[in-house]
């Protein structure tokens, strides 16, 4: 019998004397975890299917639009319009990912483990919101980058053509950010109300889709003022209206429509800001209650 060559020593419990990182790092860790969760990274294969299916579709659309433009010279949609045309996919993406981010934590009861750590409860909500917002922005922004690259490499005007494209792209990315912020705050608030993922997903879809008919009804009412205010009726229309007001012909190519908003453009911007602020405030209030339970 040979002598054992290696011995495993139980070195016992080691106290930790190294650095403990501050609030910013903790927030960053939670944010990154949320962003990875949104795309199913570090999760089971089943959790990856839906996010990557959506990403596949938007990339495919962007590639198609780019191809048509470079081959036929026809602009199918502008950068800003791309976000509008993808609104259905965005809604379903929020409906799946928002519950994944917050309802799952409520359901599994993991929140006491978070709130017994040096993590302010507002930071938890904010990190999840930032994660969902970034995920949405990447979802809408990355395909625009594909479109931009396609256009930049096929432009016939040299550097000035590339520059013009860039000036078109930036408002498109800002508009995508508006979509991301509004949809993330509304979607996350709804999802944070229940621990049941199916209910949360249904709630998100309901709020975004069921409000669309309100806009339709208001816009055919026999009053011009009501028609001009119709787009306040749903979050989707609200974002579109703010886009129309701020981006003008980048979103609605010139001459296609008259001014649907009348003089209410600033009101739409104010309502959008208020909506986001109210959702964030309610989200904070929600987690103040959850944490004390």
């Amino acid at each position: 019998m040979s002598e054992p060559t290696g011995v495993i020593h139980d070195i016992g419990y080691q106290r930790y004397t190294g650095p403990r990182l501050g609030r910013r790092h903790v927030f960053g860790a939670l944010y990154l975890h949320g962003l990875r969760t949104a795309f199913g990274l570090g999760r089971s294969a089943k959790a990856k299917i839906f996010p990557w299916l959506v990403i596949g579709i938007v990339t495919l659309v962007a590639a198609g639009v780019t191809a048509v433009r470079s081959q036929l010279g026809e602009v199918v949609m502008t950068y800003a319009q791309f976000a509008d045309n993808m609104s259905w996919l965005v809604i379903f993406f929020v409906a799946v990912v928002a519950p994944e981010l917050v309802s799952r934590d409520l359901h599994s009861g993991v929140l006491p483990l978070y709130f017994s750590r040096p993590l302010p409860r507002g930071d938890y909500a904010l990190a999840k919101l930032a994660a969902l917002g970034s995920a949405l922005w990447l979802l809408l922004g990355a395909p625009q980058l594909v479109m931009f690259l396609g256009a930049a490499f096929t432009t016939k005007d040299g550097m000035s053509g590339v520059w013009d494209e860039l000036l078109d792209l930036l408002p498109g990315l800002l508009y995508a950010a508006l979509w991301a912020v509004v949809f993330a705050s509304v979607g996350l608030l709804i999802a944070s109300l229940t621990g049941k993922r199916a209910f949360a997903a249904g709630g998100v879809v309901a709020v975004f889709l069921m409000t669309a008919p309100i806009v339709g009804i208001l816009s055919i009412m026999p009053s011009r003022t009501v028609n001009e205010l119709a787009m306040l009726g749903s979050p989707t229309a609200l974002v579109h209206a703010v886009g129309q007001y701020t981006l003008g012909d980048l979103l609605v190519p010139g001459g296609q429509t008259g001014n649907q908003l009348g003089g209410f453009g600033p009101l739409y911007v104010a309502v959008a800001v208020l909506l986001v602020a109210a959702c964030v405030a309610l989200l904070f209030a929600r987690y103040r209650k959850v944490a004390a339970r």
Partner: protein
Amino acid sequence: MTLIATESLTKRYGGTVTALADLTVAVEPGIIGLVGANGAGKSTLIKILLGLLAPTSGRVRVLGLDPTTDSAAVRARVGYMPEHDSLPPDLTAAELVTHLGRISGLPRTVARERASEALRHVGLYEERYRPVGGYSTGMKQRVKLAQALVHDPDLLLLDEPTNGLDPAGRDAMLALVHRIGTEFGISVLVCSHLLGEVERICDTLVAIDGGRLLRADHISAMTTSTDVLAVEVSEGTEDLAARLTALQLPVTRDGRLLLVPLADDATYDLILGAVAELDLPLHRLDQRRHRVAELFATREPSHV
């Protein structure tokens, strides 16, 4: 240094339900047992110690810090194991504990190392790479303990750590808690409604009932007087009681049981002798596990 100190601590919910009433207690570092029946205010006290709930009135200090104003500093040095199921089923134990370590402020690589260490200390090895959803209750309790330990706290707050475990699992969990308190040098506050369990491992015992302090003392001072033998015979209970009284043993009736304070091993002999002399069929003779109820029974009427 005083580990935990409260001063006239009171917590009322909605002005009507009183969870804690005028609780004043101070405990030294070590293993502390917090016992009380369900609804006695144990979980409320823990939440106040963590700074998750604000007390209605009174003062509280944990590790020399005030959790109502300095909750982040307190929570950085405290580990908490909740009573209820609190693990997301689709994450592996290693991922979960690493993630929670980072939320406690550990750098990324340190969090991973310490998560493996913590899981190893609670007895989870290769299983830690499997999703928690497939774990047994005993393993889940161990993961909950590991996540409380990952950031090397100075104080562990364990809310019913033996909940749902079988007797062997309970013993293993209690041994683990005892090891943490003695070998690891971390103070532990163990909540339980079973006095018999915590008295085996703790140095100090704090008993509360209805939000009021019943007793807070060193374990040695508390248990010697409450050791009791339970005797059950199928017939002739009265005769046996009379005989034991004649032997100067202070017998009390509890239903079909006779309760005899256990002075020393001779008490066993006296009882067995009496049963044999009367030729009674003895059902059982065992040392009673102390329950919180017994502490309540001996309290002064002024508390009621």
